[in-house]
């Protein structure tokens, strides 16, 4: 799978929520695009990822 532009092997299917938690992301601090579609937070725990997915995980940083 592709995560923020980098290749990653997803060994076993897992939910989006589990994937984010495993990678140390805080649920209320990130927004997620899965295969170019924005995923509402309420769906994080019901969506199951596969190795073919392309994910963008974004958050706020300082900026003008």
């Amino acid at each position, binding site marked *: 799978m592709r995560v923020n532009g980098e290749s990653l092997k997803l060994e076993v299917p897992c939910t989006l929520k589990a994937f984010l938690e495993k990678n*140390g992301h805080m649920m209320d601090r990130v*927004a997620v695009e899965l295969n170019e579609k924005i995923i509402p937070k309420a769906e994080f725990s019901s969506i199951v990822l596969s190795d073919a997915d392309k994910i963008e995980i974004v958050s706020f940083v300082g900026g003008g």
Partner: protein
Amino acid sequence: MVDKFVLGGKEFKSRFILGSGKFTLDLVKAAIEAGGAEIVTLALRRANLKGNESILDYIPKHATLLPNTSGARNADEALRIARLSRELGCGDLIKIEVIRDSRYLLPDNIETIRATELLTKDGFIALPYMYPDLEAARRMKEAGAAAIMPLGAPIGTNKGLLTRDFIKIIIDEIDLPIIVDAGIGRPSQACEAMEMGCSAVMANTAIATAGNIAQMATAFKLAIEAGRAAYLAGPGRVLEGMAEASSPLTGFLDAE
């Protein structure tokens, strides 16, 4: 009468919008507090897997977040960034920033007009950052902009109000809040922008690159308040080619 700044239906006491870039996180907090800023801009980027400190932890809860669409090179990318920002639960205010030029970072007014239309239709309260061109400002207003954010000078240069005459034209002709964004480097320049009739001033680099960040944020706060008060008071007229005594011209000593 209390002078309030209304933006996107919300009322603000402060007319100082603080950009949060180029700061360490604790200094963002210090700058917001010292400057009394109630609106703080943010950018959206790929989440860092290492280190979980979030800038949101350093912004007081009462502050209104104003995400920008920096990184967008066209209107569609601006919409994508804006929608992702909205997912982060910061509301509908968005500063539209569409830039293709990588040297001077000047905004693409044409794509910005299109972005204003797209984002407004999508429910955003759009504040387009733009090159101060009157026709472009008119089109942004027609497209639904809630305010216009003309640049004073290229981003991050601290060069001040290089575009002052053109910003003044926009203030005179466009019935929307006009917020000078980019280039303001000194409190005196922020004050001048407010005296001219700008509704608010946004500053970031001026504070972030100052010797003492909190002190400079305070200086900006005072300058913006002074400029606003002067605008409301109505600046006195300018005399050219002559002078006019301030002291009485009668009752001089030794007068016969």
